[in-house]
């Protein structure tokens, strides 16, 4: 006995639900039509993008050679262990497992993997990996398919620190650089020059990266290669550097802080360029460690400072060359003009001291240069007056860039009435001219001073110092040496005086056997005279020693500047370095150091206001020296 229920309402309502479901399925079909048929092409392209990945094959940078074809910078093959992931966290514990096999910091790598950007991420976990690391990774290709080994050209500098500041170094392009001119089209991660010639000629040296199109799976692991376009190597470049001279420079400056630059005074070709203390550019090639970088930045000796073009120092007595040239050219004096030096000059209610308290007696211009008599040049400066001193100093390249083909050169400064009015809104006192006359109240870079000395060496021309001779076989053009219009007898008189500096004056320690050297010593005080008295032997109180020279004096092949920081007087600290370098270069004996030279001019305190600020190196611009 069964009861028949009235199921009509139920059946009607089932029909409603049934219809709704059918409607939904039909709607899905329409949507799939839209996805697959209407937009099929769009999604096919996306799927292709998914699996096809373009990888750059980094082009080796052009190798650098010295003027005689000897290698200065080359590329060696190195191995980078890289990890690829498509998704956040898709690596699972792979990073931790890998980090136990080849040591690296998995946390830092994970951070780089998880930053925003393209979906596929390849991150170098270990640059320049050892053969053992490479073997370890290759052996685990199956277990850890996300890890692989890339062969990349690695920049290598056989001379290490020896050419750090001239060649520069390379590193990954920074985000800031990507926005800068010349770097716009580069991919993040591209290796570019980050200093020196490497940066200056980056575009020329880079070559063109090749391309590999590969099919990858979702773990970013290569399945097959679809296409390969080989890279175009960067062209080789020849520098003006003479490796022999450079080696002599590096050896002579061992244990010192300072700069040496040597150039051909006729052309401006830089034969040697050294700033010390330096850094090893090789340590940047594979990405410098943060700790190493911090050490470089913190080092009180400033190894990143490119001293020849960024170090600003008072030229001291070396400025007497400019002073003498101007005075002779302007007929203010003749080489025979004499002044009496009692050890001081009292003028404008101020006592200006000579370094020799007892005085040099009555001296002519040649003697005054040879003995570096301050009183003589006080008088010359007073006769010339500040306007003419300033004009000649600027004419010879002071307070302006030399145009050397290196990045981040600093111009230095020259104090004159115009400068004082502009910066301090103050009137010029005649007493200030007196200190300008002996190279105070100004800041020059070693390369500026060298360029001025080269004017004497080449008979009156201002050259553009440069490091690059030719790139890819094409000579690089520079401005022609600029004729300054000095009368030949003016140049000859100053040159003769510079010869006597070395033959019998303050620069005698640079004397060579058989090769006549012309030079001028100088010292840049770093503290006031009174302060020095408080601690005569503190290294940081010692003045910087200058020596500018050229040789052979009659037909100069090389002009050179030596700056030894805190070396005391130039005759004692810098001239022997020059002697050692030049004797190696010319293959002759240095005969100077045997005798005791007359004392070089110790720091004087001539001006009403201490000029310490100008003596200390200018604050460096280190923008170029940031690690990637």
């Amino acid at each position: 006995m069964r009861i028949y229920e009235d199921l009509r309402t139920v059946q009607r309502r089932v029909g409603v639900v049934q219809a709704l479901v059918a409607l939904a399925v039909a709607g899905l079909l329409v949507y799939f039509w839209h996805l697959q048929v209407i937009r099929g092409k769009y999604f096919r392209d996306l799927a292709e993008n998914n699996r096809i990945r373009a990888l750059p094959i980094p082009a080796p940078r052009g190798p650098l050679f010295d003027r005689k074809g000897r290698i200065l910078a080359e590329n060696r093959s190195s191995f980078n262990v890289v990890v690829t992931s498509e998704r956040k966290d898709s690596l699972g514990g792979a990073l931790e497992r890998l980090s136990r096999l080849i040591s690296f910091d998995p946390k830092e790598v994970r951070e780089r993997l998880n930053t925003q950007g393209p979906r596929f991420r390849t991150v170098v976990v270990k640059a320049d990996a050892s053969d053992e690391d490479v073997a370890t990774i290759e052996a685990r290709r199956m277990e850890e398919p996300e890890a692989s080994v890339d062969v990349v050209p690695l920049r290598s500098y056989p001379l290490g620190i020896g050419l750090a500041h001239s060649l520069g170094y390379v590193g990954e392009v920074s985000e800031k650089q990507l926005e800068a001119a010349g770097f716009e089209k580069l991919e993040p991660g591209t290796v570019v020059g980050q200093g020196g010639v490497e940066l200056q000629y980056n575009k020329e040296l880079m070559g063109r990266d090749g391309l590999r199109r590969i099919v990858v799976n979702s773990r970013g692991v290569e399945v097959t290669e679809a296409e390969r376009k080989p890279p175009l190597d960067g062209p080789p470049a020849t520098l003006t550097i003479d490796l022999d001279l450079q080696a002599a420079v590096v050896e002579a400056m061992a244990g010192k802080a300072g700069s040496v630059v040597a150039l051909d005074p006729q052309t401006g070709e830089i034969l040697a360029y050294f700033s010390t203390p330096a850094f090893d550019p090789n340590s940047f090639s594979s990405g410098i460690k943060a700790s190493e970088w911090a050490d470089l930045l913190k080092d009180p000796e400033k190894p990143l400072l490119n001293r020849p073009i960024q170090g600003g120092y008072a030229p001291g007595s070396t400025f007497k060359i400019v002073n003498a040239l101007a005075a002779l050219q302007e007929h203010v004096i003749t080489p025979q003009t004499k002044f009496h030096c009692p050890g001081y000059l009292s003028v404008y209610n101020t006592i200006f001291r000579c370094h020799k308290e007892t005085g040099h007696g009555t001296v002519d211009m040649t003697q005054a240069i040879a003995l570096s008599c301050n009183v003589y040049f006080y008088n010359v400066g007073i006769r010339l007056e500040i306007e003419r001193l300033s004009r000649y100093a600027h004419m010879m390249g002071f307070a302006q860039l030399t145009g050397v083909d290196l990045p981040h050169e600093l111009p230095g400064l020259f104090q004159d009435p115009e400068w004082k009015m502009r910066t301090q809104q103050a009137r010029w006192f005649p007493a200030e001219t007196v200190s300008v006359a002996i190279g105070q109240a100004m800041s020059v870079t070693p390369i500026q001073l060298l360029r001025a000395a080269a004017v004497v060496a080449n008979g009156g021309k201002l050259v553009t110092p440069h490091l690059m001779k030719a790139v890819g076989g094409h000579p690089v053009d520079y401005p022609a040496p600029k004729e300054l219009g000095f009368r030949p007898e003016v140049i000859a008189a100053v040159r003769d005086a510079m010869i006597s500096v070395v033959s019998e004056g303050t620069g005698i320690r640079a004397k060579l056997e058989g090769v006549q050297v012309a030079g001028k010593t100088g010292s840049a005080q770093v503290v006031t005279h009174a302060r020095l008295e408080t601690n005569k032997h503190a290294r940081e109180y010692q003045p910087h020693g200058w020596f500018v020279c050229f040789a052979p004096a009659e037909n100069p092949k090389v002009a050179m500047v030596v700056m030894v920081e805190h070396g005391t007087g130039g005759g004692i600290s810098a001239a022997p370095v020059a002697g050692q370098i030049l004797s190696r270069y010319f293959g002759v004996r240095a005969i100077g150091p045997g005798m005791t030279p007359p004392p070089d001019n110790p720091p004087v305190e001539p001006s009403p206001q201490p000029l310490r600020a100008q003596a200390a190196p200018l604050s460096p611009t280190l923008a170029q020296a940031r690690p990637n």
Partner: protein
Amino acid sequence: MAIDRRLLFNIDWGFLGAALILMGIGVATILSATFAGRNTGLEVKQLYAIALGLVGMLVVVSLDYRRLVDRAPVLYLAAVGVLVYVLAFGPRIAGTRRWFMGPGGFQVQPSEFAKLVAALLVAKLFAEAKKETLGLFDLLVPGAAVGLMVVLIAAEPDLGTAFTLVPLFLTVAFLAGLRVRAILGVVLVMMVVGSLGWMFALKEYQKSRIYTFLDPNLDPRGAGYQKIQSEIAVGSGGVAGKGYKQGTQSQLGYLPARHTDFIFSVLAEENGFVGVVAVLGLYMFILWRAFETAQMARDRVGAFLAAGIAAILSFQVIYNVAMVAGLVPVKGLPLPLMSYGGSSVLSSLFAVGLILNVRMRRFAN
């Protein structure tokens, strides 16, 4: 366990045949999705599960559904017990406690079976109401019973399966005579609760997931990944597909969970719109027949049971396929009959068995 021989004539062979064809397509697609990967041989495991499921289905078919419905309270208590046990003692796999570890490392997902138990219970409770129309008050007892299960499953967490019980409940309540006004009331309450939840209960990261669903490109390497990749797979299949075992998205591993929740994506990529029409057509046929069974049933219990099962299957098919197409947020919800997984296969076949059961016993005896 004698089956009346007459009943065999009333078995819906078309319905069963369509289900078997879909499972066959599922096995083939699982093979395509996994043969190149690390886990191979899954299609064989799936075949074992199907064989086991067919045996289970025979058992389900042989018992009169009314006897099953009568046992619903016991089955319900057992199911709740297992769900609680899993929550408390189950192994933690990928951050969830969904699994019941049987002897010999055999894993079962109780929630897959709990939803069928829920269908039995709901059919029983509403059938016993014996009223022409139901008000909101009549929903309290069945609502509480289903709600407890929803909470337990959602706590695992398995939001997809938990949510499956909602259309089941609403469908059967509707059939049982729930007034249209009451339905509107339920919908209104849910909307208010939902918007209040959005404003006060949801945490920022949960909201951000929803934003990511709305614009997956906000996080293409993270939360938006599956949706983007599945959409690309489906769309790139085009009209005719890339060919069996030729789908780049699935073969190169861009599709996650491609042999389980995203199996339809593989199918769509490799067989194109043609394959989609064929398979969705089969599903439509099955669902249509299931609802038809509810209309044919000889009593309210049978109608409610068949319609409830049909609602579960409909929701799972529609949600899964919409998810694969990128229309709804990604939730772990297998495609009945096709997705890889023993629990899902068994549960799907039991569901098929229950439908057959109701249909073959539609005549008075």
